[in-house]
């Protein structure tokens, strides 16, 4: 079976599992909204300030919700030893990882689709005219979060205190992504919006580096 076909089947399984209960997705969306609202209480920003701090807040919310959301990705395979079943299946390790990455990417994107309009309303940021470019930045940023986060979810699933460990492993690694994504989003939220190509290229580079690394190292992650 080809890697793409296997990954597609595993993606279907992840989506079916999640949409039976939607508990992960609901919790992620609510958590992200809570971050955005708390930020408003903590800083009480004026429209100019929210234009300035908004992109950072938005990405912090995505990063934190990502670090919460990615934990069950591998941890829930543990309860019934289903990861062993996946390992025994005649599919490559990368297919398992890729299936999970795609599913997590869809979950994070759905959370973003809810959060960005809420954010725009609460912080008075106009999205008119920048939707296409904003989606590009969001997609590039989310790929980076998901790729590293899924790999680290596979690592932390075998450790003690794994809920705490995952953000600890994931957030420092994502610091350059946060900087680039915030800068690119700031350029889009400015009075004369433009797509900052340097930062967009940096995000793409980040994605490529870590996607390649996880492709090369996936067999070590999946072994018993």
């Amino acid at each position, binding site marked *: 079976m080809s890697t793409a076909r296997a990954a597609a089947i595993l993606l279907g399984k992840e989506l079916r599992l999640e949409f039976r209960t939607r508990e992960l997705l609901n919790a992620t969306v609510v958590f992200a909204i809570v971050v955005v609202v708390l930020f408003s209480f903590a800083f009480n920003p004026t429209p100019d300030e929210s234009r300035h701090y908004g992109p950072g807040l938005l990405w912090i919310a995505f990063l934190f919700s990502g670090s919460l959301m990615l934990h069950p990705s591998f941890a829930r395979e543990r309860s019934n030893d289903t990861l062993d079943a996946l390992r025994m299946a005649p599919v490559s390790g990368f297919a398992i990882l890729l299936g999970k990455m795609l599913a997590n990417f869809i979950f994070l994107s759905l959370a973003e689709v809810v959060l960005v309009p809420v954010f725009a309303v609460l912080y008075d940021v106009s999205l008119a005219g920048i939707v296409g470019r904003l989606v590009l930045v969001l997609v590039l940023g989310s790929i980076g979060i998901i790729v590293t986060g899924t790999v*680290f979810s596979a690592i932390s699933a075998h450790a003690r205190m794994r809920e705490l460990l995952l953000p600890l*492993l994931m957030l420092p690694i994502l610091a350059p992504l946060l900087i680039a994504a915030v800068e690119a989003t700031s350029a889009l939220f400015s009075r004369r919006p433009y797509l900052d190509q340097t930062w967009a290229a940096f995000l793409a580079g980040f994605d490529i*580096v870590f996607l390649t690394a996880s492709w090369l190292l996936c067999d070590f992650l999946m072994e018993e």
Partner: protein
Amino acid sequence: MKSRIIGSAFAAALIIFAGYAALYIAPVDMRQGQIYRIFFFHLAAWVSTFTALTIVFVSNISYLATRRQRWDSLGVAAAEVGVACCTIGLITGPLWAKPVWGIWWTWDARLTTTFLMWLLYVSYLMLRGLMEDPRRRATLSAVFGIFAFLDVPLVYMSNRLFPTQHPQPVFFGGPNSGVDPTMAKVIVLCMIAVLVIMIPVLIDRYKVEGMRAEVEELRQEVELRTSQPAGTHLDAPARTVNVKEVL
């Protein structure tokens, strides 16, 4: 044992002499006065940090390629030494920056990168502490170590575009880089002195980690054997240890 005492005495003498040279032999800096002297050990700590963290990366890759326990031991030994040296650098830096810049800290590329590097390798050590199974710990922490090392240049690049306050390198900048020749000699001495301390510590830590891994392995074997019902035929022990030889 004798050679160890001589080696330790030599390292101690060297670091004391390096400290003396940094404080008294090197001339006073034209613009900064005495405070610049902290820099001798600041730079020496960074040289050791980067040496150690490069060793971590090499041992992570080598472990995944060969699955030899000794690469895992070397990785953790070098990570611990690297974090210790990085901590020295992170402490001496602000001590110097406060009188010279007027602030303890600024988020420029080099400072941010090293701070994040410190965080990444602290996470690496923490991850190792939280895993039970030795083989899995070695494999998964090696994967994380590779990710962490790949991240360092990215952190640096992402911070490059911000204006920097960190001084540009002046040592080894050629004959006209404005450094007194005595200062250049003292900095080389300090680097060597710190490396002479760091490398034996690293080697010792490496040996201790190797022994710890062996003890763990033997304990598992003992548990396996004692859990067998009485009268079961057992193979000969996988390994017998000559206690004198180990000590």
